[in-house]
């Protein structure tokens, strides 16, 4: 088990190194950040001074080595745009994103798993057809469109919910959260719904497929033949066995949503870190982009690790496989 975790950490470090190199070279090839930062009225000498202050006058490999040297000490550099430490900028905005994604994924699981199981248990029912059709829409419609439609309906037409922003937050141990105030929830519902709809659609389909696969299995038939109550067959025998694909998909989708919630954040002016990433890419704020991606690679690999550990909790055969290694 320990070996397994250590292996994963080494993989994470490797991925971070490769990724940071690619991002460095990529952003270097795109162009000169000072063209975006410095006022057009500045002259070339003033521009050169800024370039020098940011170390952009050095050759690219030198800039990379400086970055690596500082990064191993935990210093990811200062944002070109704001002059603040890049990692701090990202961490400040992280709670907003995580909060939105947790609510969105929570919604997706609570809606997706029951509906998916129902659809799997009664494949021919009219309700199943309706659910499946809606789920196709759910993941084929673009997020920004869903977001704008929700705004048009709930904010513009009904005037029920706010269209933008985060609302009032409560500070818990240095982290500001909206989930603790009614006003925060009002602001949170639409973005979380926007993000959650596509995820719910996916979970419905995965759950349904898994249910259909497990239903004909001998142990289900045996349990039924033995006279186990249907509720227990579904709730225990079936649910436990379909959990693996659901946990996998949910884990991956959670990671995806955290790392790239940018569309939803942009539409709802949600002050999360996805928006920070896009803004930073546009002005080539390299320290922020690199720090963000380093953090995300690390986060995604850790998330996979958690998913793997969950497997072992759910599925005894997975436990044995690891032991055999």
């Amino acid at each position, binding site marked *: 088990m320990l070996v397994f975790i250590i292996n994963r950490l080494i993989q994470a470090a490797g991925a971070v190194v490769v990724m940071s190199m690619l991002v460095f070279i990529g952003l270097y090839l795109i162009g*000169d950040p000072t063209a975006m930062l410095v006022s057009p009225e500045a002259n070339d000498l003033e521009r050169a001074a800024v370039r020098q202050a940011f170390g952009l006058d050095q050759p690219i490999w030198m800039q990379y080595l400086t970055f690596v040297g500082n990064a191993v000490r935990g210093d990811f550099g200062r944002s070109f745009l704001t002059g603040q430490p890049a990692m701090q900028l990202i961490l400040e905005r992280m709670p907003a994103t995580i909060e939105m994604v947790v609510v969105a994924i929570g919604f997706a699981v609570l809606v997706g798993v029951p509906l998916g199981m129902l659809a799997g248990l009664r494949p021919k029912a009219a309700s199943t057809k309706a659910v499946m059709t809606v789920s196709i829409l759910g993941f084929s419609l673009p997020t920004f469109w869903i977001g704008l439609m929700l705004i048009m309906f709930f904010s513009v037409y009904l005037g029920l919910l706010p269209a933008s922003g985060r609302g009032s937050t409560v500070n818990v141990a240095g982290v500001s959260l909206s989930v603790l105030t009614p006003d925060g929830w009002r602001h949170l519902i639409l973005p979380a719904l926007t993000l959650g709809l596509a995820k719910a659609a996916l979970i419905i389909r995965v759950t349904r497929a898994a249910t259909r696969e497990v239903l004909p299995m001998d142990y289900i038939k045996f349990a039924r033949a033995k006279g186990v109550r249907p509720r227990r067959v579904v709730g225990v025998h079936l649910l436990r066995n379909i959990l693996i694909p659901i946990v996998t998909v949910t884990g991956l989708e959670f990671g995806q949503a955290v790392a790239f919630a940018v569309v939803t954040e942009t539409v709802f*002016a949600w002050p999360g870190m996805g928006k920070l990433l896009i803004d930073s890419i546009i002005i080539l704020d390299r320290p922020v982009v690199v720090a963000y991606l380093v953090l995300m690679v690390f986060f995604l690999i850790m998330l996979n690790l958690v998913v793997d550990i969950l497997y072992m909790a759910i599925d005894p055969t997975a436990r044995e496989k690891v032991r055999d290694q």
Partner: protein
Amino acid sequence: MRLFTGKLATSVAALMIGAMPLHAADLMIGIKSEPSSLDPQFHVLATNMQVAFTMFEPLVMMDAFASPQPALAESWENVSPTEWVFNLRKDVTFSDGSPFTAEDVLFSFDRVAKVPNSPSAYTLFTRQIESVEAIDDHTVKMTTFQPYPLLAADITSVVIMSHLAAAGDAPEGKTTTELNRGEGLIGTGPFKFVSWQKGADFVVERNPNYWGDAPEWDKVTMRPMTNAAARAAALLSGDIAVMEDPPTANLSDFENNPDLTIAKAPAGRVVYIALDQQDRESPGISGTDTNPLMDARVREALFISIDRHGIVDRVMGGLAEPAGDLVPAHFLGSSPDHATAPTVDVERAKALLAEAGYPGGFSIVLGSPNGRYVNDVRIAQTIASMWSRIGVTTEVEASAPPVFFQNRDEMKYSAYLGAWGNGSGENLTTLNALVNTYDREQGKGTANGGRYSNPEVDALLAEAASTMDDAARGAILSKADAVVLDDFGIIPVHYEVPVWALRNGLTMEGRADQYTLPQYIVSAE
């Protein structure tokens, strides 16, 4: 089950109670990008300046037409070509109640050069200043290195901070980080700081100690909303009362919507085409060995083949004015002969090309940034089709802004679409940047990517730069401007008209510099 529905109904009701409209004296503005810092001397950026101008004031403030007006200085005069004396207002206190004196002016101008890590320093506006001295508590003398007529315009961007509140251990006093947290953020402006969350709301409230007319709003919130469609939706739902930059495509819907109204500012930024005028094989031109753009007749053909009214109506949705000059007519030093945009003349353009020795035309690549200026690529594509109509086959090369600027600086374009905002209210800065002969050391022609060079223009600009009398300088600038335009050295296309959409019942005086300032927004009643 009944219990459950009961609870649900209560929570829905609770949610709806929260949805009550904002208090009448609160104002919510949707801004298109967020400030990079609250330190008013950290980064020369329009969003930062607009946020600063809610809390702070400069000695001299630009009015809506970019003309310098008294603010914290009630008057000023040149005692010699290099010496400026500013008489400060005596009735001003900071929002914390401390009095405003010459000490604060000295502190603020001294701080400019000391702010570290700045991506674009405010020394841009103080680089001509040799010294700032206090003559007495309410008189300040500034000395420039050489006669410099634009000093008053330049210092409109330097706001005055309280030397007491902004004092600190660092060389610059309160650091950028501290100011971002709101520490030491004390100015003389109509509002005072309440809170700022990065990426989210910036909130100010009325400054009870304000010396001027009290603003209408108790509390103002500026919320960055980068997506124009999302801003529009928030405006329609009443989430925000004012939005910056409504999309040009929706403007007529907005104008017809009884809940909304539109505010426009005087025309400002000029969109132009720069032409490569170096004697070389121009990189984007094929079908000829020499650079055809060296010939003024070719440049004229390109100049008059553009249907500016068509672009304004169909591409810009009416939010622009056709340009024949580099600055709008109300600017000092505009050229009266070029105040109206030239009419399109395809036949004459073709004749000029033939006369210049290109009866069959040639091919050219037109560079354009993608997403830097309003509708930039669409304007470039429209111009490309207009040029192709006279036989100059034009292909548009649109790039992300950083790539575009790099290509421009490396002179990889034979022609490119650019834009130039002029914050000084006079043509000197525009001409100096766009058509003065490029000189890296002296900072001339910094945006002259076509490398236009005309000794006559250079001489006139040098003369204007040291002429302190406004009328005399205006006349010289008009002359220089006319020389460039008669030489077709650069092709103005249109002036952008900044626009805002507001909830009905609000009015706003739009500023040429595009700052959305809450003190300029009032209820119609």
